[in-house]
């Protein structure tokens, strides 16, 4: 069924106390797409990512993954009075998933401020991600009754490092890698969880143009190799315009535009949001 979207957000609202960080956000991502989420600082992009990956619970709305409900919520308890978002009253179910469950369902992510397992080696960083799909119980794993599975995990991790070009640094502490390599490692680690949808939170932050170019190619390569759908937050407009099939623009938690890169470039609402002029 090609027309079932990989990810759908319906009226997703995230509210902290009285502050609405994401307001009734709707978006759809089709299989195989690269979609970018852009917007000024504090527009609620990372909050949206955190809602998708289960770090925050949506206050209202529904998130679907491959057509199945991933999370759904409606304002309850104290929120019933406090709620300031839109589209209240559409939802009456509550379904929550923890970030690890969501990861195992096939959504992996990277972080805006790199979050590697710093004191562990590059190899271990990737190997740990394979743990999410482990079959053996802790008993079997302790007494190495799963040596075949263990070997598969190790081989897989090594192959993956080879693929991303970090094989020769496998035994290095993650903390000792140069910045650019750390970004690559974080993506490799996310790939090791065997995702269908990969969320990248500012993958090119802090990179120079040459590194950004390398990253662009890298993302393309990975997308092809692993048949990924990619949803990314990014500020480097060159990268965004280069790579994305479609772009969503948010400001103050609301979607203000969406469309192909060239459409977005000329959208007056987007320009005013970035320049801070009232449209």
């Amino acid at each position, binding site marked *: 069924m090609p027309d079932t979207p990989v990810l759908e957000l319906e009226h997703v609202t995230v509210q*902290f*106390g009285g502050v609405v960080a994401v307001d009734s956000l709707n978006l759809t991502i089709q299989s195989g797409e690269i979609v970018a989420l852009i917007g000024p600082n504090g527009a609620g992009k*990372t909050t949206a990512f*955190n809602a998708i990956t289960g*770090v925050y619970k949506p206050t209202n709305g529904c998130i679907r993954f491959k057509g199945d409900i991933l999370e759904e919520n409606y304002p309850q308890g104290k929120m019933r009075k406090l709620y300031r978002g839109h589209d209240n009253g559409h939802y009456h179910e509550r379904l929550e998933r923890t970030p690890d469950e969501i990861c195992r369902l096939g959504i992996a992510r990277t972080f805006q401020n790199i979050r590697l397992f710093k004191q562990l080696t590059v190899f271990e960083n990737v190997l740990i991600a394979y743990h999410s799909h482990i079959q053996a119980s802790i008993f079997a794993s302790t007494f190495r009754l799963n040596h075949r599975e263990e070997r598969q995990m190790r081989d897989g991790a090594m192959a993956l490092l080879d693929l991303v070009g970090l094989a020769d640094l496998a035994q290095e502490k993650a903390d000792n890698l140069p910045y650019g390599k750390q970004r690559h490692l974080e993506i490799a680690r996310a790939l090791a969880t065997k995702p269908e949808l990969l969320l990248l939170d500012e993958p090119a932050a802090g990179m120079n143009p040459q590194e950004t170019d390398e990253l662009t190619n890298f993302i393309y390569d990975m997308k092809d190799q692993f048949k990924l759908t990619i949803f990314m937050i990014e500020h480097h407009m060159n990268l965004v315009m280069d790579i994305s099939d479609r772009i969503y623009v948010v400001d103050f938690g609301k979607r203000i535009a969406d469309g192909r890169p060239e459409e977005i470039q000329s959208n007056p609402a987007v320009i005013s949001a970035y320049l801070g002029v009232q449209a």
Partner: protein
Amino acid sequence: MSFSTFIQHCLTGISLGGAYALISIGYTLVYGILLLINFAHADIFMMAGYFMIFAMASFPWQVAIPIVILATVVLGVVIERVAYKPLRNAPRMSVMISAIGVSYLLQNLATYLFSALPQGYPTIPPLKKVIQLGSVTTSLVTLITPVLTILLVILLMLLVRHSKFGMAMRAVSKDFETSQLMGIKINRVVSYTFAIGSALAAIGSILYFTDRMSVTPFSGTMPGLKCFVAAVLGGIGSIPGAMIGGFIIGITETFLVALGYSTYSDAVTFLFLIIILIVRPTGLLGEELTEKV
């Protein structure tokens, strides 16, 4: 239980609760600012007991009390400078281990210097005056403790609400790094916080030990843990919360002992802690905080 027995138990409980309240303020202030359970606070309280023994040996009580408060404040501030300040950027676990280490050190030092034998706590004559209220007999300290506690709490709240220092303190507890950027002298605020906490612990110690009459190097441990629980119960960071928590723990403990469950008196305190953390992690009067990812 007859009515007068009940009243007698209530008095004992409220008086104990008052002393607990004063100690738990020290925990709540420090935790509010440094996010640190100052395990050493219990032993600062214990040391204040010893200070009083020595001060009263050479001075009348009117002079001894200020000396004790001053010495305790110095001890508290020095501990912060030596054991916590160098670790300000270290992982939380290291700071907590440091706090446990200081507590361990103070206990062992007290054992070494003053022996593990209980030392008699000096009598402060006016506090020990026995009063007869109908069929209830009690000493003055039992009545003074809660009154003094409430007065001090009101005073402290005025200080925190309305003074410049109080504003700095609140700012630091809301956001440590930002307030540093805003030009607040963090180290000074932290030192003052420890000073206030220690001073209250010293007053609490005078009231507590006057009622109990003996000090050992381990007299602080259990009251200390209970007072931390009291601070959590009331809502960490909240001064009136710490006071309410202190009273609740003190009264509960007294009645448990009175009913013959003295074995459980410590355990029930911790049960309170676990229940409150599950049901209402912010405590009775605490504010909700969201963590940033």
